């Protein structure tokens, strides 16, 4: 009898979860003008030249229009574009773009100075001068593997460690880097501080990486409650 009640309860819980996920009226949407059936656009010149497979979804499903920033320029990078979008304040994207450009320029100036002042060829091999690779390295170094979630069980709130989705990983890494870059004295420019932070993060040091490590430590401390996730 007791078993049957438990099963019923589980079923009900499942149904309620299902109900919550399938009520589109309550889903938060921000400028989502496309239905989920629409596919992401293919806009790079080299991608467009690739022949399509017979079973390729793009043949049978509608596709979103490319946004303004999605171009086939040599300087386009999807991660950098995302970074700029997160950095934007007051809708002033132009300003964010300028900050990122100047940051990259600063990184290049700092690294090139090291490169050209290095005494031997061996030292030079280990100096990375490309700001894009440094940026990507910094982002990957700041990505968290776990995060915590509050779960109420038996009237008590528990902090439960949960795995992170790739999108959230990226978002978290970027916000930590931006926070580190904007936390500065008044007379220091953002692009100088941000360049410094990115260079540090690429070396697995600095504020952004420390934030990630702190979060990991918190997850480690609460690992006894991991089973509350289900």
């Amino acid at each position, binding site marked *: 009898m007791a078993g049957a009640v438990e099963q019923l309860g589980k079923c009900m819980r499942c149904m309620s979860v299902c109900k919550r996920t399938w009520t589109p009226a309550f889903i938060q949407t921000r400028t989502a003008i496309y239905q989920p059936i629409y596919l992401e656009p293919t806009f790079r010149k080299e991608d467009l030249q690739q022949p399509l497979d017979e079973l390729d979804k793009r043949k049978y499903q509608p596709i979103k229009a490319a946004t303004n920033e999605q171009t086939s320029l040599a300087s386009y990078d999807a991660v950098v574009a995302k970074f700029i979008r997160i950095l934007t304040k007051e809708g002033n994207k132009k300003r964010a773009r300028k900050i990122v450009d100047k940051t990259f320029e600063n990184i*290049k100036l700092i690294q090139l*100075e090291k490169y*050209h002042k290095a005494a031997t060829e061996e030292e030079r091999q280990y100096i990375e001068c*490309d700001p894009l690779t440094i940026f990507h390295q910094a982002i990957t170094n700041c990505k968290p593997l776990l995060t915590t979630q509050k779960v109420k069980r038996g009237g008590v709130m528990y902090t439960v460690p949960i795995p992170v989705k790739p999108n959230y990983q990226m978002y978290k890494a970027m916000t930590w880097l931006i926070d580190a870059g904007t936390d500065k004295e008044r007379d220091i420019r953002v692009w100088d501080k941000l360049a410094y932070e990115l260079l540090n993060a690429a070396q697995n040091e600095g504020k952004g990486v420390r934030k990630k490590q702190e979060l990991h430590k918190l997850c480690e401390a609460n690992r006894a409650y991991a089973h509350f996730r289900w």
Partner: protein
Amino acid sequence: MCSAAREDRATPGTRESLAQQFSKAIDSHHQRRQIFRTTENDPANHTEHHEGMFYTVPPEHFHQWMRKGLTVNMYRMANAFNESSLMVRRPATELIGYLQMAEYTMPVIRYLLYGEYGSGKSTSLAHVMHYCGTQGWLILHVPWGAFFNRYSRDVQPSVYRPGRLDQPLEAAEWMTYFRQMNESLLTQLNIKVQHKYVWNKRESAEVGTPLAEVMEFGLARVKYAADVVGAVLKEIRLQAAPQGFKVLMAVDGVNAFWSTTNIKVEDDRTKRHNAGNLSLVHHFKKMIRSDWSNGAVIGTVDAYANDEDQRESYLPRYVLGKEGFEWLDPHIPIYVPNYSEKEALSCLQYYIDRKWLQNPKCKVALSRLQK
């Protein structure tokens, strides 16, 4: 380019006929990338053959004659590249040619560099200054003419001539800059004052006082710095021909001498002083008249040295205005064009050589351009 040539030389392999070697050499010459660097680092030897190539300025020369006047980016790049290179361009070589051919017993010739914003007027001026410096000229350099109009920190009414305005701090700063630039030459020349200068009741410079001492006084008593600058310029102007040292007066943005300043008039706060009212500008304006000899005056005409409402054209007559144009008439105008295709390519190659262009797609684009 070098590596390919070296390989050819290093691996002779089977013996080739002279004709084969010759044809091979020509092929490699054609395949070779365009040369963007020259080893000729003495600006006196730069001719049109070196056009579009970069020459390296020795660090001590860069420190001495190009400490001010170039754009901020140039300094940052020079620091990052661990070398300072300038491109040899037509206006500079043309001007150096004129300077080499000029007759120095006659009154000074005025040269005006003009061109669009960012076309390289100041850089050409720096190149010519490097030439003059290596030739042992005395250089009087005003890094930015509009500086005195816009950024003056402390303005005081002149003691010497009522109605004029002194900028003691700027004057002292310019004097130290001038002294640093010509340190060795000034000690070697040991110029002595030919006039008596009375600063106040107690202090004066008698005839025969060394110029160094007068400058020292100006720096010690900053109140008189602007007047001391006038005295120094006057003595240099008078003694250039008899003493036999050549003088270069280089001004970046000369047209600022005839524009208006930010300084408001005491009696009527709606009006602003003309630049001619500043005593420093007054002294420099005397220097760019052609009433002295054994020297040259080079100025750049820059619309950005003017007020905001007078930047429509970069041509000398418009930018200088009627008064300024008449003051500088006659002069030799030299047009500074934007980069030609050859110069742009050589600049890109220089950037790739210094690893400034990091994106691999840049190199692909450049190779496509070269075909």
